[in-house]
């Protein structure tokens, strides 16, 4: 189906998925190819395979999340894993327990995988050093959100049949975005031409060292783009006075139909959600014909199934799928 890039390997090197930065190009391709197979499961009348039967997966979410948590949970259930969800508001964290102690207590009950969402960068690295269980990063602070980048890549490949050579424009609050960091890692590893654009006050220092082009001109970023990805303006961080107002942000950086005319005819519009309509993206664009935003969500399940399967299932379950 995908002919351009094929993974010559059949397993991942690590027990954890902490970030795209730890993955090789081949590992990324392996996950994307495995996700193709997983998507087919979701199209069956009985959407369940026994691949992770008897495995326990904990979804440990210290930050609010709808999409990602639900997506992981569905993925786990379709693979027949025993899953449980722990949200910070209901855990011992509210009693003052440290992250390390929470993790050690969970660990004592011998889960196979822990899916972690945390407000602080590096929280998953800390857990990976103290847990035998595999850790999947479901978003850590401003650092990485690897499964989001994988599902984005999956969605791009679905439409464009390739990633190498595509012009991808990523526009929005770059500084605070873990989605940006994961996508930059992934897209550059797979050979895309990545442009990032946003207010200079929200430009991550040194990002050009990652091999991306930077511009404060949205028009320049969008010119001839195959993919335009908008990032959420993180309203909760706006006390830092990074730009004057949401209105002005929309005027200078918001993605409108007019701006989009500079892109390729068959451009696709992506957004990791949750969207601020009328801030980083005009509703006409979000709901328009080029938008693949809901496909991203749908693909998230298949990609997360692939990640879980490759990390927790391993080779002995290969025939079960």
């Amino acid at each position, binding site marked *: 189906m995908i002919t351009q890039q094929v993974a010559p390997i059949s397993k991942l090197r690590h027990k954890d998925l902490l970030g795209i930065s730890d993955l090789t190009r081949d590992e990324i391709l392996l996950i994307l190819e495995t996700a193709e197979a997983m998507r087919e499961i979701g199209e069956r009348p009985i959407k369940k395979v026994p691949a992770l039967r008897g495995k326990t997966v904990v979804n440990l979410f210290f930050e609010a999340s709808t999409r990602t948590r639900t997506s992981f949970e569905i993925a786990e259930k379709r693979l027949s894993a025993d899953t449980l969800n722990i949200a910070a508001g209901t855990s011992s964290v509210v009693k003052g327990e440290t992250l390390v102690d929470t993790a050690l207590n969970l660990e004592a009950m011998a889960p196979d995988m822990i899916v972690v969402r945390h407000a*602080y960068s590096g929280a998953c690295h800390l857990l990976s050093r103290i847990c035998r269980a595999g850790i999947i990063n479901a978003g850590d602070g401003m650092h990485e959100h690897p499964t989001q980048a994988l599902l984005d890549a999956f969605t791009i490949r679905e439409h464009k049949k390739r990633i190498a050579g595509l012009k991808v424009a990523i526009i929005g609050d770059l500084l605070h975005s873990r989605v940006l960091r994961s996508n930059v890692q992934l897209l550059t590893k797979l050979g895309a031409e990545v442009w990032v654009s946003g207010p200079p006050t929200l430009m*991550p*220092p040194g990002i050009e060292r*990652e091999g991306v082009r930077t511009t404060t001109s949205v028009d320049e970023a969008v010119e001839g783009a195959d993919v335009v990805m908008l990032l959420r303006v993180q309203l909760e961080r706006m006390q830092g006075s990074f730009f004057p107002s949401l209105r002005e942000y929309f005027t200078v950086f918001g993605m409108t139909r007019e701006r989009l005319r500079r892109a390729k005819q068959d451009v696709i519009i992506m957004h990791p959600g949750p969207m601020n309509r009328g801030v980083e993206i005009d509703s006409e664009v979000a709901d328009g014909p080029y938008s693949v935003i809901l496909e991203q969500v749908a693909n998230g399940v298949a990609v997360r199934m692939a990640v879980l399967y490759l990390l927790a299932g391993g080779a002995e379950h290969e025939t079960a799928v």
Partner: protein
Amino acid sequence: MKRLFKGGRVVDPANGRDGTFDVLIDGDRIVRVGKDLPADGAHVVAVPAGFVVTPGLFDMHVHLREPGQEHKETVATGAAAAVAGGFTAVACMPNTSPINDNAGVTEYILQKAAHAGLARVYPIGAVSKESKGEQLADIAELRAAGCVGISDDGYPVKTALLMRRALEYAGMFNMPVLEHCEDPSLKGDGVAHEGYHASTLGLRGIPGIAESIMVQRDIALAEMTGAAVHVCHMSAATSLRAVREGKAYGVRVTCEVAPHHFTLTDESLATPVSYDTNMKMNPPLRSAVDRDDMLKGIVDGTVDAIATDHAPHHYDEKKREFDLAPFGIVGLETCVSICFDRLVHPGLIRLSRLVELLSTNPARILNVAAGSLSDGAIADITVLAPDMTVTVDAARFRSKSRNTPFDGWQLKGGVAATIVGGRTVYVNEHASGADILR
């Protein structure tokens, strides 16, 4: 009791000495330093070849955590760490709990230090009451109780106006103001040096300019008032430039650099272990350009002192999310080895310059009668072993805390023995031949 240290290399920049000399001490005093001194009834100690006798080293920036945070360090454990690191004296910062902003706290610290009987402890008093940056602390009272300088360390002196007043007022006693230079608005909630590595790891940045903009403010105020300002734990290239310019204009400005800031860079945030909280300190590990400029300042004389900013933290406190872990690392027991390994042995500076940085200058900046082996001086002496191989082993630190980024490092150069007031208070069992110095 008289002891005659015979035949060692003596490096004492205050007296322009670097050569083979004898050192005669009687009780707590140095009687004479000279060539071929007669034994004259003294116990003769033949200093082993390869050892170097220097004035006692002086770490002018440490946190001893007592009173209030004794789970991290006490005056006694800090003093033990000091002498094990070759330091006969330390100056301890006032950010204890309560803050050392009154004579009661100063006296408490001095009492603990006297009881420990190891390194000399010189308290630094607070600039402002509770270090809140609002009202000056009782500076004359602090001085009378034994404080040798003032600082709101942990934070900068809050306003330019209060800094002006502090300089003017403390200037009356010829006490320096030791400043933690950092613009709070530019620091924000940063946890690491603003640059590529913090950015990639998703850590909020603290730009170098957050430091240097405050250095510039303080130099301007020191120039205006004619008083002495000392820049603590300098880390940014732009700060060094400001200090260099200030000195050129005759401003009374001095500065110190910590070993980690001339050794490590922000690359250590990512590798070999990412998010290692022992790489988290304030000011943060900066870029390679900044690190190299700190070395240049040490070589060209702009940097006056090397001080460790010894900041002990309990292991529970450091075993946390990077954002939540406290800033700071211990430094007393690794400083000398790092200085030898990174400064002296590579040929950047001579040993006499190192003694200036670690002894002569800190004593001069704080106006303390120390830092020399002059006839009649207090017999605070450090014996160094420049060629010994040291493997840093945090588990064996005298300090209560182990938060060092240097654990396991192999370094060339160490401490053989530490003598305070004529009394040998530390002998390094790994330095062969040091036993004779007991």
